[in-house]
């Protein structure tokens, strides 16, 4: 036992050793992804190397470089070994979309402490913004033949989708933010449902969303004549947006705005007494959180080439919430982990277990774990609330170097 502790201690101090072990791990897991045919375990291990990387004591620069190489080069390469690259990449793309949304919701719930149960509405708004203009729908709506817009418009629409979602965030926020604490959860839930029902029925009197049939034939993204159609191609779009989003939220977290969100979360009255305007600060949280979701909505509709209201139900909002809670409210690495765990659970593990079970012991369909999503989410929520309310990775506070600060104050005088 003592020897093991010593070993751990040494590992914690020795960065070179950490680095070597990490490389070894990456090598092994990527090789097994490459050579084994569709092994979920191997793929999870490969993704797990990112978590391992998080816990190493390497410098920030090295961490980011390794993460980039992993995401941009190693993972696509490793999955290209067998016939199931597109399956892997499909999972990766979905996971990326969920991570971005969870980071958006984390601003609202984790930083600002506002429980939003209708978050998926902003995802819907992003998806429909691109969906309407990049499908034949806009042509019938505006009686103009410049529509549908070509795939090149996808890129500006990432921004436009984000902006429109942010605008809706503000529009909903203005009345909603008068409501306190737990009532806010109910009001946002109501708004989320209203938006879904409206999208579901807005095929008359004017056909805007094409109702329950949804929008199809949405244009795929195009760049200099190249069309993104495969999951392995979308992967790069998602990674790029995700990197921007992660850097963005990290910078926000310890900024003036980020601090005022947390201040409002901790104590509204004290925050106001410090000169922080409540409504404006909350609106920023709503708008920025919504914009991440809106951007990913655009990607979602371009990738599936189809949107309909059934993708934006309450369970989706709860799914994103579970990601944030599981990972740790206010903790950026935590939320990324939470989103990854839940998406992979949803998209791969449950299906795998189901397949395995139906093959081996022939269980009735009712029992199939894929259908147990709600039960699993519910259990996660209760367990986390009771035993680990700060989530898997607790949010860290920014640490300052007192020595450096002390030196500066003296040199000032």
């Amino acid at each position: 036992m003592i020897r093991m502790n010593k070993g751990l201690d040494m590992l914690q101090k020795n960065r070179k050793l950490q680095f070597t072990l990490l490389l070894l791990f990456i090598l092994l897991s990527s090789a097994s992804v490459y050579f084994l045919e569709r092994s979920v375990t191997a793929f999870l291990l490969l993704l797990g190397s990112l978590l391992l990387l998080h816990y190493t004591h390497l410098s920030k620069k090295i961490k980011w470089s390794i993460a980039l190489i992993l995401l941009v080069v190693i993972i696509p390469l490793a999955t290209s070994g067998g016939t199931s690259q597109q399956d892997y990449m499909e999972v990766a793309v979905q996971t990326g979309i969920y991570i971005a949304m969870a980071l958006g919701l984390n601003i609202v719930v984790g930083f600002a402490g506002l429980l939003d149960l209708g978050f998926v509405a902003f995802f819907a708004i992003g998806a429909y913004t691109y969906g309407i203009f990049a499908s034949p729908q806009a042509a019938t709506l505006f009686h103009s033949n410049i529509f549908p817009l070509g795939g090149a418009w996808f890129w500006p629409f990432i921004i436009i989708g984000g902006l429109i979602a942010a605008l809706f965030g503000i529009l909903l926020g203005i009345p909603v933010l008068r409501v306190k604490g737990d009532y806010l959860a109910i009001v946002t839930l109501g708004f989320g449902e209203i938006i879904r029902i409206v999208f579901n029925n807005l095929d008359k009197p004017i056909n805007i969303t094409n109702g329950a049939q949804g929008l199809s034939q949405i244009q795929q993204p195009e760049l200099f004549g190249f069309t993104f159609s495969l999951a392995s191609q979308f992967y790069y779009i998602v990674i790029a947006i995700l990197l921007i989003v992660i850097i963005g939220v990290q910078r926000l977290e310890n900024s003036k705005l980020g601090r005022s969100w947390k201040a409002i979360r901790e104590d509204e009255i004290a925050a106001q007494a410090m000169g922080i305007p409540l409504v404006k600060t909350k609106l920023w949280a709503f708008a920025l959180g919504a914009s991440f979701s809106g951007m990913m909505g655009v990607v979602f509709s371009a990738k599936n080439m189809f949107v309909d209201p059934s993708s934006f139900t309450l369970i989706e909002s709860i799914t994103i919430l579970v990601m944030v809670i599981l990972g740790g409210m206010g903790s950026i690495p935590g939320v990324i982990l939470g989103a990854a765990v839940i998406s992979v659970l949803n998209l791969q593990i449950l299906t795998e277990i189901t397949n395995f079970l139906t093959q081996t012991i022939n269980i009735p369909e009712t029992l199939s774990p894929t259908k147990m999503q709600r039960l699993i989410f519910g259990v996660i929520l209760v367990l986390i609330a009771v035993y680990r309310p700060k989530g898997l990775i607790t949010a860290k506070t920014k640490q300052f170097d007192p020595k450096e600060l002390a030196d500066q104050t003296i040199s000032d005088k």
Partner: protein
Amino acid sequence: MSHIFSALPQVLVDGLTLGAIYAVVALGYTMVYGILELINFAHGEVFMTGAFIGTGLLLSMGAFGSALPAWITLILILILTALLTGLLGMGIEKLAYRPLRKAPKLIPLISAIGISFILQDLVRFLAEWKTGNYIVTGTTLFEGKLTIPFSSIIGTFQNATIKTNTLILIGITIAIMFMLDIFVNRTKWGTAMRAVAQDQETASLMSINVNKVISLTFFIGSAIGGATGFLFAQQYATIDPYIGFILGLKAFTAAVLGGIGNIRGAMFGGLLLGVLEVFAAANLSTLTSGVFGSEYKDVFAFAILILVLIFKPEGLFGKSAKEKV
């Protein structure tokens, strides 16, 4: 427009029926919120579970059940359902809320959402396992129908039909509300409940067992919610595991409308909301000349919910409480 007027009696009957359900479910919300300041999201699911337990009991009684007079079966099932859902509510409190009493407000709310999902899925699982389908259609204890001749009162009114089940539902819910009102206002335990709602610490100093009172509150709220679930199943015949969530939200709105923590207010809020919703569902299309049909009835209900929470969070009769600084 004249159609709206002539159909009014039926709208009123249907609205009061739905409203009575909202009212009883709202009681559960208002009692818990009054004491713990917690939106017990799972209460809608307790109602739903009650619907399934009751229907399950009825179905499993089979031949034995049909030998009994219908009203004895009804009372037997109601009591059993109430007992089981009451215990369920107590269990939920102990497991998911009690450990969190000192946690930040967001945390118990999250736990409540979790419980709500767990119940939905467990019931779905059991229902599918036993019947092959999660949507369950029960047998009806009372088949009768009654026509109230409104047209003979005012000529332009159409007659309204009312099912025997509906009469029973309205009768029992009114009885429940009366009994609860007497319990809370006239008995020792009711007084203890009100004391704990006012100030837990002081109440505990007055040698009131706060945990016991909270357990009792959950038991009563869940018992009457669950029993109403069975009445709901009788009234509308088909049930599924997801009926509780939205209905719960509406009932919560009713509770807020009547002033949260206010038991009589919740009854009033429930009836009002029920009538408004049925009226909207029946007439939205006519009123907006076809632009919005009855598919918008939930939008209407949610709009009421949002408006109430934003502009009248203290309810129609209540005073707003200020945070102590």
